[in-house]
């Protein structure tokens, strides 16, 4: 016959499994901080290195160099922090959550990588595509990601759409592409730099509570 203690034990099992299964933060909060700083630095470096009249191909390559460096820093940071987090919780690095996140992310990231390769010599539209595809990728994880990741995805998607409309109008009004990459770089700095920093600041206290009180506390945005 079931007793209160059996019921409590079963509820504990359910809670702990739900926590493991439902919450997967594909971008660790410290990574967002590192990535955000790298994004701001990349944007600043390109902005101050850019000269009016630069060849389109040269400025595209400079732009790609700055932002791919920021991407590598953020990716290496993310692997490091996710691995440390998994070790602290006594879980595997490649967990079911990570596999689910990768399955959700890879289609949009594959498209982004393909577009980057194809348009590496004329990168004016890459900022818009990157913002849209990154946002869509994050939204693909919303079934198991904390609410903060979903909000970040929406922020990128909306910013990408606004940037796309803005670049369309600017192209129609001005009729030339001078400075378009500079504006795109500014949008990248605001989103990949600024949005990640805002995300890190907002999600940090909650993420710390979950780590400290594992088993007791749940991510408030995702408690089942």
């Amino acid at each position, binding site marked *: *016959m*079931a*007793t*209160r203690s059996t*019921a*409590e034990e*079963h*509820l504990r*099992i*359910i809670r702990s*499994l*739900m926590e*493991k*299964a*439902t919450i997967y933060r594909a971008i660790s909060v410290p990574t967002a901080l590192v990535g955000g700083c790298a994004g701001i630095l990349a944007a600043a470096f390109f902005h101050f290195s850019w000269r009016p009249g630069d060849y389109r191909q040269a400025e595209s390559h400079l732009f790609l160099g700055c932002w791919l460096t920021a991407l590598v820093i953020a990716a290496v940071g993310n692997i490091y922090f996710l691995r440390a987090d998994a070790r602290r919780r006594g879980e*595997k690095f490649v*967990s*079911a959550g990570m*596999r*689910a996140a990768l399955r959700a992310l890879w289609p949009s990231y594959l498209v982004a990588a393909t577009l980057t390769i194809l348009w590496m010599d004329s990168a004016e539209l890459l900022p818009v595509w990157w913002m849209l595809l990154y946002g869509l990728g994050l939204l693909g994880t919303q*079934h*198991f990601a904390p609410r903060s990741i979903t909000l970040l995805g929406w922020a990128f998607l909306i910013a990408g759409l606004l940037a796309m409309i803005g670049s369309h109008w600017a192209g129609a009004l001005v009729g030339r592409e001078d400075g378009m990459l500079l504006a795109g770089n500014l949008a990248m700095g605001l989103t990949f730099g600024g949005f990640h920093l805002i995300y890190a600041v907002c999600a940090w206290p909650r993420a710390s509570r979950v780590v400290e009180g594992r088993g007791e506390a749940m991510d408030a945005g995702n408690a*089942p």
Partner: protein
Amino acid sequence: MFDFDKLDKVIHEKSRLGIMTLLAARPSWTFQDLKAELELSDGNLVTHLRTLHENGYVAVTKEVLDRPQTSYALTTKGRKLFQEYLSILEQIVKLGRPGGEDDKVTR
């Protein structure tokens, strides 16, 4: 008096409870992911999944992508019964709290 017959015997077994919980948390799980998360042997997991499937709690999808893969998901019936099971557990815990109706719980 609490009626313990209300507790679903199929779900109440610990391993099956784990399976039902994971399936309730995400739309679908592959056999390998369930095995890794619950740390059950192949045989054990197959047996419990078969029980849940035969009782209509779990739907099975077999597909061949680059290799054969079996995925599991809760059926509507399974989800409903899991939620009922949860609310019964909560009632039991509530009854046992100080100021609750502990004396009425038959053991």
